[in-house]
């Protein structure tokens, strides 16, 4: 795996998908980092003391010489990100963390995304060259992003919204259970990314596969021990041993 680096990048575009979601496209100074699906980058605005820390964002894709991040407005840092313009400078560390492992031969990749969890599963789906199944849920249609593009890079795309505005009414977990009903669980390898509650629910279904967790991170590079995740073998670092963990490894409370 390529080792991480610290680099500056210029914003090329900051496209608003809808009221809360954006795609930030940046051109790194120097060479394009070689990231793998599941890895992430720490992103910040140089010189600012408030917010002080960089924030983690999943590797989404490289498109036309630009490194892209799919992000949702959440608090202080993402609010500042959302007003970045072309030409503005950001500072980035990455690629960081462990990527999603490849499935054993003959197993079908089943991607389960909740909300912005799609950001890291999108490049994974792409890497499977149309073979993946994707189940994707959100609270409403605004939280289901890029569905047309996704359809083009997977075999099946199942959608669920809690308000029923798109796809099945319910959570992605409902969708997953329905999908698995009567099927042989062992045929699939699950890749799940989304809110903690969703990952917990996925982990309780006795499936083989991986979850990608989100923890608050100070450094992203493994030195602060701030991103501890409780696992069956003690605390592990979400940024270093994770963010991708085998199902069953993380102890959700």
């Amino acid at each position: 795996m390529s080792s991480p680096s610290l680099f500056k990048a210029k914003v090329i575009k900051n496209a608003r998908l809808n009221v809360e979601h954006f795609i930030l496209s940046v051109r790194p100074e120097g060479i394009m980092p070689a990231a793998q699906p599941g890895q992430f980058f720490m992103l910040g605005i140089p010189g600012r003391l408030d917010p002080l820390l960089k924030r983690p964002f999943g590797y989404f894709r490289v498109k036309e010489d630009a490194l892209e991040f799919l992000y949702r407005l959440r608090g202080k840092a993402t609010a500042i990100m959302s007003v970045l313009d072309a030409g503005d400078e950001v500072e980035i560390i990455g690629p960081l963390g462990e990527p999603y492992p490849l499935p054993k031969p003959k197993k079908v990749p089943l991607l389960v995304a909740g909300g912005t969890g799609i950001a890291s599963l999108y490049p994974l789906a792409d890497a499977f060259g149309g073979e993946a199944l994707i189940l994707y849920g959100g609270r409403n249609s605004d939280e289901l992003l890029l569905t047309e593009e996704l359809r083009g890079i997977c075999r099946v795309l199942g959608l669920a919204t809690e308000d029923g505005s798109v796809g099945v009414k319910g959570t992605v977990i409902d969708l997953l259970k329905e999908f698995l009903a009567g099927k042989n669980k062992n045929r699939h390898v699950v890749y799940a990314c989304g809110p903690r509650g969703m990952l917990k629910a996925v982990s309780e279904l006795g499936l083989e596969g991986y979850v990608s967790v989100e923890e608050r991170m100070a450094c992203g590079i493994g030195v602060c021990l701030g991103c501890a995740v409780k696992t069956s073998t003690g605390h592990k670092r979400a940024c270093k041993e994770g963010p991708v963990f085998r199902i069953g490894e993380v102890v959700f409370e």
Partner: protein
Amino acid sequence: MSKRLEVKIGKLTLKNPVMTASGTAGYGAELSEFFDLSRLGAIVLKGISLKPWPGNPPPRIIETPSGMINAIGLQNVGLKAFIDEKLPFIKKFDVPVIANVLGTTVGEYAKLASRLDEAGVDGIELNVSCPNVKKGGIAFGLDLKAFYKLIRKVRGCVKQAILIVKLSPGAPDICEFSRAAEDEGADAISLINTIPAMEIDISCRKPSIKNVIGGLSGPAIMPIALRMVFQASRAVKIPVIGMGGIRAGEDAVKFLLAGATAVAVGTAIFVNPRAPINVIEGIEDYLKRFNVEKVSDLIGGLQL
């Protein structure tokens, strides 16, 4: 390399006055991907205890205005694994290695110190100021009698390495504790450790970190750190290692002027893993810009 940046701490000569702060550079491996560790004045490693500690349950960190709170709770591999697995890696670099230790009793500190001394570390920093572990540690940093006893005992166990005592910013009188460390033969004191602090998530009405209280670090505390370094360095003759919010050469120069002989970079590493290098280069720039011959000319150079 010129000797312009050289400083001395006890018998140790540092090629420049910039170290990492304990707990912000791990045991060196991760940072070595971002710069050559040999460029540092010294590397101070994550605090270790006699036995491995699991640390506090998450969440452990939260950002605050120009700072952050952490309650890692001294998660560490323990003395044995440190000596067997971590020390060999860092010893490959041409950089003085300073181990940071925390115990719950005088005996534990003494054992840690003598084993590490034998294992060949260049310095031992006694953390008597960690706000994030329930017993031990900070108790020594707040009780002058216990503090005296601790330093005396540990001093007897350390033969090769230099002995640094890291003071608690909550010490009732920083000058008194500084002098106590000096009296008992410490080679240097370091300060400040993080300041006990708290943040609350008002949407769930819970503390933002599981441990409720953690330690505040980063630029927010720099003015407090600078004041304490100023006071401590006027109270003692041994070198003072200053830290708290340093992120650039200018900040380091402030600590040197206030009386520090060396500085440590902590939280800034999280923002920028190359921060210690930026600080070294920033100090060099300052020397050039203001025509200062050598860094030691700055130490305590504040004009009152």
